[in-house]
């Protein structure tokens, strides 16, 4: 089997379309993709679109042409068509692996040396996943069409099917996970503005996308095998059955799945009790999901039978305790209302324990607020990731954070411990570059430069000066600039304590 696979690999490599695909790839890589590697390792996969398509076309042509051709050298092996099919599939996978290794080598040589090793590993992983998914899918179309049609026409038909799939999905990222499945052989963010700080988040949806295409390919290949193979054994049915089960369960998952899209909340409609926060303590876990145990000290300025906080509805509350006692609460539309009797001038200790997956997208599909092992974007005041009161006053915060990523915040950080007085706490992590210029520390993605950030800030402040708007930003002192994402409804620049937030669009 291995010998005939290697024979087919050689045949495959001698194909003129392989040379075409390689020329296109190398031209594309050395004329424009190398520059991309300097700013983002994920954008490399995104802009690898044309080489991917050419490589898929090569695989379609070579797998279908080898499948219907008879090779005299191997005629003794080719009596069993099923074996021939498997050998061809493996031969093309070998070529794909070779192609992948070459691309990875290019990535490793020309990447920006400032990227962290985890970023590089994830970038390479993402590239290989997209390459393998697309290639296996192309091979399965090519082989199955050649089996059904058995002449040169199969090449045309398989190219037409591939072209149709590209045409349906090209430039049209859908809200629906099922339609996005079809696009799994290209990077999800090919046609939208990409959040370079987050990179690609390896979420469940990401893998579901790719797995569904792989299951479909395995299903097509195993059905083709049964169609042509002369040996039919019962145990051979395990593979198509398993792939069919996996495929259909993934489709059901996709049909029932909803992405969390950002929706603006009208805070002004809600009324709040009059209270003052004394101290705000958090035990925060930001490794995969967000899990938080908060302890809030609250002093009441009036008698009340409710206590309200803003907290995003994506979270699930484990328990709410007031002075150590379990109390009733309602949690609807980003509003948590605790029902208990609170008297004027009394001080209570409230404990709220909640958790949830944070993966909120903008309506175009790019990442907005997220918590993942390597990228975090939690902007207090825009996203209610902790029970927040509506207040202009500062409170004393004390956070213990468990996370694998390097964190940035408006509060001073030392060894996972954030402490200080502020109105809203924000936490960021991701593919950041850091530079100190004068006495200001800039934390920004590799796609930006300090000069560009500085010129944008001064241009915006000039604009504000002309219109007398947002006087807050122009007179404030800051010693840290963090680039993050938040919805367009918020300002492009915001100042919290001595940190200036700069929105990435």
């Amino acid at each position, binding site marked *: 089997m291995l010998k005939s696979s290697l024979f087919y690999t050689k045949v495959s490599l001698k194909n003129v379309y392989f040379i075409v695909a390689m020329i296109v790839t190398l031209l594309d890589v050395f*004329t*424009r993709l190398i520059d991309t590697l300097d700013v983002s390792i994920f954008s490399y996969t995104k*802009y690898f*679109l044309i080489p991917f398509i050419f490589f898929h076309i090569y695989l379609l042509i070579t797998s279908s042409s080898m499948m219907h051709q008879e090779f005299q050298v191997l005629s003794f092996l080719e009596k069993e068509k099923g074996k021939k099919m498997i050998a061809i599939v493996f031969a093309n996978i070998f070529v794909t692996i070779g192609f992948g290794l070459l691309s990875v080598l290019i990535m490793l040589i020309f990447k920006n040396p400032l990227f962290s090793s985890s970023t590089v590993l994830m970038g390479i992983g993402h590239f290989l996943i997209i390459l393998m998914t697309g290639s296996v899918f192309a091979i399965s179309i090519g082989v199955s069409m050649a089996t059904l049609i058995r002449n040169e026409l199969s090449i045309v038909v398989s190219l037409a099917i591939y072209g149709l799939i590209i045409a349906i999905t090209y*430039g*049209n*990222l859908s809200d629906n996970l099922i339609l996005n499945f079809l696009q799994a052989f290209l990077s999800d963010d*090919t*046609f*939208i*503005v*990409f959040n370079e700080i987050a990179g690609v988040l390896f979420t469940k949806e990401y893998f579901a996308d790719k797995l569904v295409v792989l299951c479909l390919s395995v299903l097509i290949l195993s059905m083709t095998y049964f169609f042509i193979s002369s040996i039919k054994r019962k145990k051979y049915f395990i593979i198509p059955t398993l792939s069919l089960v996996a495929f259909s369960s993934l489709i059901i998952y996709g049909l029932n799945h909803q992405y969390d899209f950002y929706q603006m909340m009208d805070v002004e409609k809600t009324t709040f009790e009059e209270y003052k926060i004394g101290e705000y303590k958090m035990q925060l876990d930001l490794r995969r999901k967000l899990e938080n145990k908060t302890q809030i000290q609250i002093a009441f300025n009036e008698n009340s039978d409710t206590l309200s906080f803003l907290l995003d509805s994506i979270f699930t509350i484990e328990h709410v305790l007031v002075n150590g006692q379990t109390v009733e609460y309602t949690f609807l539309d980003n509003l948590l209302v605790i029902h208990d009797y609170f008297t004027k001038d009394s001080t209570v200790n409230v404990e709220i324990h909640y958790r949830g997956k944070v993966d909120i997208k903008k*309506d*175009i599909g790019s990442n907005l607020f997220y918590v993942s092992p390597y990228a975090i974007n939690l902007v207090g005041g825009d996203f209610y990731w902790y029970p927040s009161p509506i207040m202009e006053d500062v409170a004393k915060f004390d956070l213990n954070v468990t996370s694998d990523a390097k964190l940035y915040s408006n509060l001073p950080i030392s060894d996972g411990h954030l402490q200080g007085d502020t109105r809203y706490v924000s936490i960021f992590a991701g593919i950041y570059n850091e530079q100190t210029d004068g006495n200001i520390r800039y934390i920004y993605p590799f796609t930006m430069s300090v000069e560009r950030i500085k010129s944008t800030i001064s*241009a915006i402040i000039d604009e504000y000066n002309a219109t007398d708007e947002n006087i807050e930003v122009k007179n404030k002192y800051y010693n840290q600039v963090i680039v993050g994402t938040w919805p*367009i*409804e918020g300002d*492009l620049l915001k100042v919290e304590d001595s940190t200036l937030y700069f*929105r990435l*669009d």
Partner: protein
Amino acid sequence: MKKFIASAFVATTVFASLAASAGTIGPVNVAGLFTETNYAHLGSGKHTLSGTGIAGSGTARAMKVIPLKPDEAVAKTAVSSPSTSTDSFNAIDKNDNDVNQSYYIRWTSLNASSKASVSIYK
């Protein structure tokens, strides 16, 4: 040959970034499964993509022109007749190569008889 390729690249970059008109796009009528408007240089700042359905439904996207790479959607709004829907985005004046950044609107629909009026304004 090299010169030809180089000049072709430059030509594409220049054409892709040329401003057809400044400030706004439309309102223009778009129809069918796939329609794209002319390019426009919007200048910097927050802009609104707006779509009013005339017949059927579809999706309007504000597209940012990226020379030599697939264009990227910066805003998206689902439009269905007869209502109006909007989405906002932040436009940039110049791209990284200091060339005017152009935008256009892409209309896609699953219904060939769909029709809408789309625009981008500040």
